[in-house]
C-alpha cells in the first residue's frame, strides 16, 4: 500500500508546487520591497521591477552595466511575464513593470495612478523554416502567410508561394506549421500582424498571446519552436528576431505595405518604428506591425517599461527615471550587440519628454 501513498504524495507535491506558484505570482516581491525608510537607510535606493521575459536578457545586461557607474541605486528585474508584470505594477508591489504589449483601457482604469509607457527597445518576429535543399532566403506575401496559418495553403509548392519565390526548388510536401504553445508576447505581435493584413484572421482567430490556432503544433518557448523546426523537415514557424539571430536560423523576407520584401534586420525594424511615428499617439501605446515605409520590416513591436507619472518616493522615482534615461541613450550599444533594435531618434526625443514629466511631490525628477 505504501506505493499508493507515494503516488498520492507525488501528486500532492506537484499540486502544492502549483498552488505556491499562484501565491508567488501574487506576492513574491513584497518581501523585497519593505518600506521606503528601510530602502534609504544605507544610502542606496532599492528598486524592484518585473514583467516581460522578451527584454529580460537586455535589462539584466543594462542593470549590471549601470551598476558599474551608478552605485547609488540597486535595481532588480524579474522576468515574470508581461501579464504578471502588469498585475504586480497595478498592485504597486513593484516599482516598475515591463510589458511587450501596452496596457489596455481596462487595465489602465484599474491602475491607481496615471501610467507612462516608456518604450525601451524594439523586437521583431521572424518566420523561420526547415527546407532541405533550399539555400536562398524565402519570400512571403502577407496574404500567403495568413492563409498558411489559417490552413488554407497546405503545400510548400503551392502556386502562391512559388510566385513569390521564382527559381526556388520548393518540395511537394505538406507545410508543418509550428507556433508557440505558451502564451507569449511573440504570439501577440504575430497575431496582431495577421489581424491587420487578413480580415479573415481577425474575424476567426483574433489578436492575443494564446489564440486558438487553426493549424499546426505548439512548441514551448522560442527554444521549443526552433527545436521542432530544426528536427522536422518542411516546417514553418515564427520566433523572436533576437533569438533567430543568436542561433543562426534561416529567416524569411516579408513583403511590407510598400510592396518591398523587407529583410528582418535591426535597421529595418527601427525603420518600421520610425515610419509609424506619425501615427503614434501621445501616450506612446502603439502597434507598429505592417508599418508604412520602403524598408519597414512589418512584424515588429516596442517593449515597454511601465512607470507611474506621480512617484510616491522621490528618491526611488529619480533613480528609476535616471536609469531609463541611461537605457535609451547609453544602453543602445548593448541593445544592438544583443540583437534588440534601438528606438528611432524621434522616439527617443518623445521618451525624454515623458521622463522629464515624471514627478514626485509636484516637482519633476530630472534636473
Amino acid at each position, binding site marked *: *500500500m*505504501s*506505493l*499508493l501513498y*507515494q*503516488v*498520492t*504524495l*507525488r*501528486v*500532492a507535491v*506537484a*499540486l*502544492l508546487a*502549483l*498552488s505556491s*506558484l*499562484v501565491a508567488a*505570482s501574487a506576492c513574491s516581491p513584497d518581501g523585497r520591497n519593505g518600506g521606503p525608510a528601510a530602502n534609504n537607510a544605507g544610502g542606496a535606493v532599492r528598486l524592484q521591477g518585473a514583467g516581460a521575459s522578451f527584454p529580460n536578457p537586455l535589462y539584466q545586461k543594462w542593470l549590471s552595466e549601470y551598476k558599474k557607474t551608478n552605485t547609488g541605486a540597486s535595481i532588480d528585474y524579474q522576468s*515574470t*511575464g*508581461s*501579464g*504578471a508584470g*502588469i*498585475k504586480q505594477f497595478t498592485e504597486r508591489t513593484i516599482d516598475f513593470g515591463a510589458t511587450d504589449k501596452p496596457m489596455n483601457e481596462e487595465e489602465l482604469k484599474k491602475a491607481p495612478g496615471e501610467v507612462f509607457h516608456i518604450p525601451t527597445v524594439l523586437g521583431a518576429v521572424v518566420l523561420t523554416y526547415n527546407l532541405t535543399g533550399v539555400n536562398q532566403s524565402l519570400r512571403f506575401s502577407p496574404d500567403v502567410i495568413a492563409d498558411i496559418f489559417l490552413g488554407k495553403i497546405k503545400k510548400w509548392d503551392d502556386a502562391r508561394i512559388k510566385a513569390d519565390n521564382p527559381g526556388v526548388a520548393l518540395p511537394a510536401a*505538406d507545410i*508543418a506549421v509550428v507556433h508557440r*504553445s*505558451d*502564451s*507569449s508576447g511573440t504570439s501577440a505581435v504575430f497575431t496582431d500582424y495577421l489581424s491587420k493584413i487578413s480580415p479573415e484572421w481577425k474575424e476567426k*482567430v*483574433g*489578436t*492575443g*498571446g*494564446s*489564440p*486558438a*490556432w487553426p493549424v*499546426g*503544433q*505548439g*512548441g*514551448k518557448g522560442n527554444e*521549443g519552436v526552433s*527545436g*521542432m523546426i530544426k*528536427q*522536422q523537415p518542411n*516546417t514553418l514557424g515564427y520566433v523572436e528576431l533576437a533569438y533567430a539571430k543568436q542561433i543562426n536560423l534561416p529567416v524569411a523576407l516579408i513583403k511590407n505595405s510598400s510592396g518591398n520584401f523587407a529583410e528582418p534586420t535591426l535597421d529595418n525594424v527601427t525603420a518600421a518604428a520610425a515610419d509609424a511615428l506619425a501615427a503614434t499617439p501621445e501616450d506612446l501605446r502603439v502597434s507598429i506591425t505592417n508599418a508604412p515605409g520602403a524598408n519597414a520590416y512589418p512584424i515588429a513591436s516596442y517593449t515597454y517599461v511601465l512607470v507611474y507619472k506621480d512617484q510616491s518616493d522621490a528618491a526611488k522615482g529619480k533613480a528609476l527615471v535616471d536609469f531609463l534615461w541611461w537605457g535609451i541613450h547609453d544602453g543602445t550599444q548593448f541593445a544592438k550587440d544583443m540583437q534588440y533594435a534601438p528606438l528611432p531618434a524621434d522616439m527617443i526625443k518623445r521618451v525624454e519628454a515623458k521622463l522629464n514629466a515624471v514627478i514626485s511631490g509636484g516637482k519633476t525628477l530630472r534636473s
Partner: protein
Amino acid sequence: MSNPQPALPTPASAYGARARVWDWRRALSPTGDLGDAVFRGALFLCALLLLLIVAAMIAAMASMSTLSMREFGWGFLTSSQWNPLANKFGAWPFIYGTVMSSIIALLISVPLSLGVAVFLVEQAPARVARPLTFLVELLAAIPSVVYGLWGIFVLAPFLRVHVMPPLQNWFGFLPLFQGSITGISLLTGGVILAIMITPIISAVVRDVLAAVPVSQREAALALGATRWETTRVVLANGGPGIAGAIILGLGRAVGETMAVTMLIGNRPEVSASLFAPSYTIASVLANEFREATGDLYVSALVQLGLILFFVTFVINGAARLLVWSVTRGTSGTARA
C-alpha cells in the same frame, strides 16, 4: 521509573495525573509513557497535516474555479473548444490527451518493465544483474527536461523516419495511423512517457519479485515446473505489488509535464490519429498559467488542475479496487 521507597505515596505520582479520568498520556499511548505519547502525537500530527494539505488544496482550487464552473457547468468537461481570446473554455481535448498518452505509455511500458524485472530477478547472473539494476535505478532519477530534449533531438526524428511510416503502410486502414507524419504527436508523447516510467515500474517490480519467498520457486521446480512456469508462479505471487508498481508509473505518466510538452505538439484538439498533435492537462497548465490574464481564463485553468486531481483520485481508487480484487482470499503475498 519504579521507585520502591515508601517515602513516595504511590507510583502514580511519577505521572501526576494518573488518578484523573482523562489522562492525555493514556489517551495517546496505551502504556502511558511520556516519550511514547509525544512520539505518537507527533506522528498523528504528520498524518493530519497531509490530510489538511490535500483538503486545503481541493478547497482552494474549487473556490478559484467557481467562476468557470458557473459559466460552463458540466459542459466544461465535454466541450472541445479552448479559445482564450474568445473566453471559451472546454477540458475535453486535455482530458483525452492525458488519458490516451498514459494508456499508450502503459501499453508499451508494462510488458517491457515486467520483462526487465523478471530477467533481473529470475534469469540474470548476479554479476550482470547488479550493474543492470543500478542502471535502471539511475534512469528513474533523470530529470524530465532531459528526456524531453533527448525526445526532440533523437526520439521524434527516429519515430518519424523508422517507426511511423511502416505503421502507416501496414495499418494505414485504421484511423489511428492516418494523417501526415511530423514526428511530434500523441504517439511520441506516449512513447517518451513509456520510456520515463519503465525504470520506475521495473525497479519496483524487481523489488517485489525479489521479495517472493525462494520456497515458492523451489516448490514449483520440485513439482516439475519449467523455468517459464515457475516464473508465472512468482508473478502471480507478486500480483498486488506489481499492480502497485504500475499505478506508481501511471501516476508519473499522468502528471508528467515537461517532456510531454516538448513532444506532444500542444494542440487542443481530439483527433482519431495517433500521429496528430495532442495536449495534456499538465502541459496546458505549464504553458498558459504564467501569462493567463482575465479572471475566467485563470479560473478555467484552475478547474483543469482540479480535474487532474480527480483523474488521479479515480486512478488511485481503481488501483485499490484492482489490488483488492486480486488479493481477495489470499494472504502472505509480497507487497512493495
